[in-house]
């Protein structure tokens, strides 16, 4: 296995995921590529249905009927997760080297098992710990995510805990086997605002202390600006712009990124009403030809109907927009 600093920790190449529904084939992921370096935090933003979750679920091997991975490849530490050898490999790394935190802590924990059982089963399965070792480690983990009285907490059931507390438990569970990559799929969407801030702070702190790589999926651009090194903007099953987070926010290139940033409410600017992007996201059963954003884009021209690819723009910046590459919108 290739595991030096030059290979990215995770590389997704041209990932195609289709869902075979009654209404037709939903092309949820239409050739998504991104990389996550060691110790790096990648933010993936985009509106609901843009394929953010599908892309990371493919990494976890969680795409199930009626969804199918039908193209591209995923490399973790240089090893493909999709070839025959990778299928075995993914069983070993899932939950151990790659861990996932989900959106809704209220439903993500099993209601009929104690917190202790749910944390220790990961340790016992992946690290072969015995009961006592696992229990001790679980208590340490709860301490790590700032849960007090861990001994008492281990015996509690999820229904005895608040949402913020449960999300901390989810994070503790994700950290159990000292993963190299944590995928957080909208970890704060279901929490109220003060708890959101606490959880994000915790994530940022842990990311730095443990030097773990993080993929943070969100539709909150503020969160990305705060926590992420790099950001990928997704639209209609494709990445339309990717680059250094500060740069993307300072000078967005793709019209969709610009629209998203404009639509983010700001405290320091007084606006009459919320800004939004006109139109609705395309139907992924029959996505538009060429640039999927073109029907909503005020700069669209005939050339936009041609297939678009992510094109380097310097400074590790890639964008998939015909007009932007021409260089007149920057």
């Amino acid at each position, binding site marked *: 296995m290739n595991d030096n600093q030059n290979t990215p920790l995770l590389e997704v190449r041209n990932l195609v995921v289709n869902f075979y529904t009654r209404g037709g084939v939903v092309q949820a992921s239409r050739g998504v590529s991104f990389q996550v370096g060691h110790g790096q935090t990648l933010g993936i933003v985009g509106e609901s249905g843009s394929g953010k979750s599908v892309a990371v679920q493919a990494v976890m091997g969680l795409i199930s009927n009626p969804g199918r991975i039908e193209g591209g490849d995923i490399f973790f530490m240089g090893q493909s997760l999709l070839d025959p050898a990778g299928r075995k490999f993914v069983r070993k790394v899932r939950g151990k080297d790659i861990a996932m935190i989900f959106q809704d802590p209220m439903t993500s924990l*099993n209601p009929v098992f104690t917190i202790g059982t749910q944390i220790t089963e990961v340790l016992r399965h992946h690290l072969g710990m015995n009961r006592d070792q696992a229990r001790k480690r679980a208590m340490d983990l709860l301490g790590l995510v700032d849960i007090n009285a861990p001994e008492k907490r281990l015996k509690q059931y999820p229904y005895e805990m608040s949402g913020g507390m449960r999300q901390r438990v989810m994070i503790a569970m994700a950290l159990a086997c000292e993963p190299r990559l944590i995928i957080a799929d909208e970890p704060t969407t279901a929490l109220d605002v003060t708890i959101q801030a606490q959880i994000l702070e915790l994530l940022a702190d842990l990311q730095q202390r443990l030097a773990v790589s993080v993929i943070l999926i969100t539709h909150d651009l503020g969160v990305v600006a705060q926590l992420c090194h790099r950001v990928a903007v997704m639209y209609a099953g494709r990445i339309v712009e990717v680059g250094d987070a500060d740069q993307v926010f300072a000078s967005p290139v793709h019209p969709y990124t610009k629209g998203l940033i404009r639509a983010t409410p700001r405290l320091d600017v007084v606006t009459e009403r919320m800004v939004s992007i006109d139109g609705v996201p395309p139907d992924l059963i029959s996505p538009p030809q060429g640039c999927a954003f073109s029907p909503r884009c005020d700069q669209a021209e005939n050339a936009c109907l041609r297939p678009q690819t992510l094109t380097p723009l310097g400074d590790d910046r890639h964008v998939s927009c015909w007009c932007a590459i021409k260089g007149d919108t920057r």
Partner: protein
Amino acid sequence: MGRFIYRRLIHGLIVIFGVTIIVFVVTRMVGDPVQVMLPLESTLEQRAAFEKKLGLDRPIYIQFGEFLGNIARLDFGESLWQKRPAMDIVFEKLPMTILLTAVGIGFACVAAIPLGIIAALRPGGMVDRVTVFGSLLGLSVPQFWLGLLFIVLFAVQFKILPTSGAATPAHIIMPALTMGLPTLARLVMLVRSSMIDELNQQYVKTSFAKGLPFVRVVGLHALRNAGLPVMTLVGWEVIRSLAGYSVVVETVFAWPGIGLTAIQAIERDDLILIQAIVFTAAVCVVAINIAMDFIYKLIDPRLKLT
């Protein structure tokens, strides 16, 4: 916990008391027991003597008080048909019915849970469609007919199983199957639909993301959550088998249990024995209900025992 047991026992006693009143009223007020029990040609003197023997000549409230007192000592009097204490007969026959129910329902559970899970893993798949079709068939077949079909098939045609009675262990196979198959049909549908619900829950996704083995996710995480509705049905099926289906199945196979005895007691107008059987059935139902509440709590810690 102590408070829970205490309250449930009180509830149970109230139910049993209610059943006792109904039994008392039905046997004493609907028709004349003496007329039913004595031959048509008996003399008035004989009738009066019999009435006195049963205590029917005294005021009704005294009769009821005495009836309750006797029940407290589990003494219903002598069976008119077998001329020995009715409770002795019940205690002799009840274990046979419990055995039959246990084997029948046990078989249904052992078959229904894996079948339901496999069907739920791929809704609309081959196994699923065969299972659903099979259980619809099982639901539509009347139990007595199923029993007769088994007799014709396995006892008469192939001659591999005994027709009736309870002489050898092989004797239990056909009655237990007859008892268990309709239960299996109902149970498999419920296991299937509960598991489909549970497998779509977010915690199942979490469990897979934790890298847990498939068998553990499905067979432990999801199944335990699906357990509550399934156990409710199992409890209900046990009650219905003990206090209902046993009458049909035991009659078809001449299985010497409480159901067959009940039918025989009714045919012989043995009101004493009928009272004892109805009372015992009520106690069984109450006991099973209390046991089910404990099992619920074991499956789902969120439930509060009150």
